[in-house]
């Protein structure tokens, strides 16, 4: 495909997810579209600088938000591999300078994957008082022939905030190997959320680690998985309270909705300072019968009730 065709194909695939492709064409908001190892569009915005460098198997992206810059509109990132086979390796470097504010929305499109690998290595630095909200949503086909490997190291400065949501609820997961490590400085806030709907023979491995290194740092590692058919999932949430008055929590819910499902959760809570406190809750099981009965008492069928509960958990 030539670049123009790829660009249009990516926009079309983006539109099929229910999103509005106009946000990716909008000249006033920051945006980036990458297909395989080709950069199809870079949209700059005041206070934001995006630099890209194609590699043999992907693209290196450097995203800098200037000190004190507060971006009014979300930055839209779009990554994808449209052919049935392919490899995409994204090396992402983000620097949110002190006092800046940014929301980034990433769409990862692999609608036809039969043998595709998407790997992301992110190095994210949030400056003092900066706030960075990141939501990554994947759209997969039903073949399940995809391997997604998101890796991230995030450092959050004093009074900084990092909020991330990784959502993979459309199509088959394939293989997901997610591993994010967050380091929070004094009075910082770190929130990691992962939402996955696994089915067929999906294999899901999630590691969320939060190191509360500064006094009064707070962190939440949250995961919501709904598993059916023969899906297998392992969730490891680790929170380390390394400083006075650090507060951390791990919240894992895995809903098992199939006879062949194997679901595991391993929470690790570790405290190095007597004034720190970290807690965890993990629940694995079938859909709550009382929730089912409540919805059925409002006239929903069993299938409709399951659908409402699952959609709510993954929302």
């Amino acid at each position: 495909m030539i670049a123009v065709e790829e660009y249009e194909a990516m926009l079309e695939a983006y539109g099929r997810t229910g999103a509005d492709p106009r946000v990716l064409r909008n000249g006033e908001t920051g945006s980036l579209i990458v297909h395989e190892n080709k950069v199809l569009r870079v949209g700059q915005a005041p206070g934001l600088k995006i630099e890209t460098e194609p590699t043999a198997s992907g693209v290196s992206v450097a995203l800098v938000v200037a000190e004190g810059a507060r971006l009014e509109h979300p930055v839209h990132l779009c990554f994808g591999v449209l052919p049935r086979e392919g490899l995409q390796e994204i090396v992402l470097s983000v620097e949110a300078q002190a006092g800046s504010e940014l929301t980034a929305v990433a769409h990862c499109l692999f609608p036809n994957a039969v043998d595709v690998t998407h790997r992301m290595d992110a190095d994210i630095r949030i400056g003092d008082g900066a706030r960075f909200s990141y939501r990554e949503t994947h759209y997969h086909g039903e073949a399940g022939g995809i391997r997604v490997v998101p890796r991230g190291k995030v450092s959050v400065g004093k009074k900084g905030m990092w909020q991330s949501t990784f959502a993979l609820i459309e199509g088959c997961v394939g293989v997901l190997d997610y591993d994010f490590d967050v380091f929070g400085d004094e009075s910082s806030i770190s929130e990691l959320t992962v939402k996955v709907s696994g089915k067929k023979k999906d294999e899901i491995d999630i590691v969320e680690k939060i190191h509360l290194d500064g006094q009064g740092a707070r962190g939440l590692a949250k995961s919501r998985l709904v598993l059916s058919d023969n899906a297998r999932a392992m969730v490891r949430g680790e929170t380390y309270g390394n400083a006075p008055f650090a507060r951390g929590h791990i919240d894992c819910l895995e809903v098992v909705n199939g006879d062949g499902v194997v679901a595991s959760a391993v929470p690790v809570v570790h405290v190095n300072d007597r004034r720190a406190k970290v807690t965890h809750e993990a629940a694995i099981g079938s859909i709550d019968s009382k929730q089912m009965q409540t919805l059925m008492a409002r006239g929903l069928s069993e299938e409709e009730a399951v659908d409402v509960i699952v959609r709510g958990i993954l929302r």
Partner: protein
Amino acid sequence: MFRPELCFLPHVGERKQVLTAENLRLTLNGRQVINGLSFEVKEGTIHGLLGVNGTGKTTLANLLMGICYPDEGSIVFQGQDITRRSISERAKMGISLAWQEPARFEGLSVREYLSLRRQPGMEEIEGYLWTVGLLPAQFLDRAVDATLSGGERKRVELASVMAMKPSLAILDEPDSGIDVLSLPHIMNGIAAMGKQGSSVLLITHSEEAIKAADEVWIACDGRIVNTGQPQELCEWFKNHCSTCSHVGEPEHNGA
């Protein structure tokens, strides 16, 4: 409670029955929880059910909603035997239940919870929230999850039953755990349910709440042991049930 909108209805005793339960029996864990229970729910009537803990009131609510089935006896609703019908079928026929301890739902907004089956307009949904004392602007987009207080959740539950416009609303202790300032809103909701033409089975411990009823039943040991007007039955309940030999027995507090 005087309700002029019901003046066109005949006296409670002469109204048409909406639901008839006959000789219901249910044993759970070796204990007879429902013990030959028979009653009739009348059209446009608020029936109050009083009884100490463990007398089978919540089990009765579950039997009527189809959450469990009786070992013996029958339930006829609007002329159809529903004894073995599922929860969904009963809901579609016009029975709805406000739970004593309502479930919480992640990611489901109050607006969505009030329009699960029917699709009431926004004005109608807001009306239900106003009725139970919840400001629509504050609550419509709130999730029906753990962020709602217990009292707020119960009021949302009541509003959601109203939104179903049921022929029979079963309200299982809608006033329990409610602060005194919020209680009038619950009472408003119960009265509004009557005004919209629903028959109501109001299960409660509260002397205040039972005043909303047209007729009161006293339950003891899985049976109805007395019926009458709220005022006289409250007195009877206090005089008889406080000295009842069943009160305080461990098994009396189970159901």
